[in-house]
C-alpha cells in the first residue's frame, strides 16, 4: 500500500493537522510501511466472519432521565484558552472574511 503526497495531505486535512512539508514526506513513507504491514489482516477473516466492536457482550445499558448537577458556568469555561462573556471564543469560522 503506497500513499502519495496528495493522500497524506488529504488525510492531514481531514484530521486537522497542519503538517510541515517535511512531516508530510516522512509520514508518507511511514504510513505506507505501517499500512502495508497492517494489510496482513486481509490474508485471513473472510467476509462471513462478523466484526467485533465490543469485546464484552453488554446490551441495553441506560441511564434514568433524572437531572444531575451541572458544572457551574465558571467551572465550564475555567480551562478555556479564550472565553468572552461566559462563552468559548474562536476565530472566524468561514475562510473568506
Amino acid at each position: 500500500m503506497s500513499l502519495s503526497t496528495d493522500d497524506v495531505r488529504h488525510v492531514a486535512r481531514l484530521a486537522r493537522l497542519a503538517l510541515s512539508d517535511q512531516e508530510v514526506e516522512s509520514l508518507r513513507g511511514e504510513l505506507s510501511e505501517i499500512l502495508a504491514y497492517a494489510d496482513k489482516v486481509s490474508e485471513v477473516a473472510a467476509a462471513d466472519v462478523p466484526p467485533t466492536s465490543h469485546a464484552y457482550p453488554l446490551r441495553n445499558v441506560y441511564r434514568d432521565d433524572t437531572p444531575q448537577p451541572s458544572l457551574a458556568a465558571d467551572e465550564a469555561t475555567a480551562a478555556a484558552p479564550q472565553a468572552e462573556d461566559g462563552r468559548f471564543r474562536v476565530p472566524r469560522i468561514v475562510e473568506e472574511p
Partner: protein
Amino acid sequence: MHPLVAADAAGLQRLLHAREASATEITRAHLDRIAETDQHVSAFIRTLDQSALDHAGDIDRRLSDGDDVGALAGLPLALKDILCMKGVETTCGSRMLQHYRPPYDATVVRRLREADAIVVGKANMDEFAMGSSCENSAFFPTRNPWDLQRVPGGSSGGSVAAVAANDVPLGIGTDTGGSVRQPAALCGVVGVKPTYGLVSRFGLIAFASSLDQVGPIARGVRDAALLLEVIAGHDPRDATSIPTEVPDLHTTLEAGVEGLRVGVVREFMGEGMSDGVRSVVTAAIDRLGALGAEVVDVSLPHAGYGVSAYYLIAPSECSSNLSRYDGVRYGLRVDGETTERMMASTREAGFGPEVKRRIMIGTYALSAGYYDAYYAQAQRVRTLIIRDYEAAYADCDVLVSPTSPTTAFKLGERAADPLAMYLSDVYTIPSNLAGAPALSLPVGLDDGGLPVGLQLMAPVLGEPVLFRAARALERELAIDSTPRGRGSLAEVAA
C-alpha cells in the same frame, strides 16, 4: 534504602495498623526516596507532596480517633498521568494538556482516595499512551531503574519505574496493547491488565476505547491483587463497565497450581524473542510443571495477526478520541485567522510525532473507501482471535508466553523505526483484542542482568485463577525485585 521504602504494601499496612509507623512517616519516607531517585529515573511529571502529606495526616488522625480507614490506607501510589484528578494538572504526557486541570475525578481516582491510597505523584508516560518505551513523552523519557541508559518500557513507564525504584509500593497504569505488562516485564515488577470492563474508564483519558484498561502495578502479586480489588467493579458512568461484583482475588490466591492446566502458546514461543528471554521463560514454565501444573502446548492460530489488527483498530479509535483536542475548550491553543487554521496549528504543535502518526493511520483507515478493507477487516480478525482464545480455554485454565520479545532496549534504539517499536507488543496485544485478563510476572534475569517477564493469561473474568497461578510461581521463584547491577539505580541511590 529506608526499611519503609523496601517494604511491600502488606508489610506497610501491618506496620500502620500496629501503630509502628504512621501514614505520615510512611509518606515522608517515600517522598524522600523520590527526591533521591527521580533525578536519575524521571518517573514523575509532578509530585504531590503537600496533598499527600495532608491525606496522610488525615489518616493518622482518624486512626488515633479509632475511626475506619480504607483498604489502602497509608500506601503511597504513583498514578499514571492519564487519569483525571480534579484540579491537578493531568497532562497525558502531552504538550496539548500540559496545563490542563480536570474539573472532575476519574472513578478510579475517587475509589483510590476513598480507600485512602496516598497519591504521591503523577507518573510519566508515552504521550496519550502511545508508545512502548516512554520516550514519546513530550517532557522527558523515564529511565529503567535496572539500567538507566535503557527504557522502562511503555506507555506506563513512569508508574512502573516508580514501583521498581521503590519510590512507591503501588502504581496505576493503563494497558491498551501491553502498556502495563510490557514495562512491568522490562522493569521486573508485576503488572496486570484486567478483563476489559472490569475497571471503570470514566475519567481515563481515552486512547483506544475498546481496548484501554486501567491496571495495577506492584512488586508482588498480593499487592497487585489488593489494588485491583479496590479499583475494580461496576461503574454506572461507564457503559462498557461489566455489571459484576468486585472479584475475590484473595480467597484462592495461595491455592497453588496443582492440577491446573497451563497452555503454552505455540505462536508466542517461536522466532522473534531473544535467547535470554527464551531461556528464562522456558525455565519458569518448567517450574510451573514441577509445582504440579499440567503444562500443555496450545495454539492461537490467528495470534500472529494481532499486531496488524491492533494497528488498525487502535489508531482508528484514537483518531476519533483525539479530535476533541482543538484549542477551543481546554488545553493548548495556537492562534489562527480562522477556526480551522487555529485547530490545525494547535494540533500540529500540541501532538508529538507518534501521536500524529497514529491519528493519520486511523483517519486513513476509516476514510471513505478504506473502511471495509482496513477497520472492518481488522475487527473480523479480532473475532477470530477471540474464538481462538475460547477454543484454547476449553482445554486450559491459564495460558503462558513471554511478555516481551526482548529485555529492556537502549534509549533511542528503536525511536527511528516505528514498526519495530510496534512489534514489542506482539505477545500482549491479543489479550487486549480479546478483552481477556493478563499479568506479567518477573521470573528472572537474562545474562545481561535485565529482568524477564512471563505473561500469564486467563479467560474473561478469570482474574482469580490468573492471580492464583502467578502467586504460586512467584512464591516458588522468590525473585528479588530490587534493581541492581551495572548502570542500575543501585549504583547512584541505594
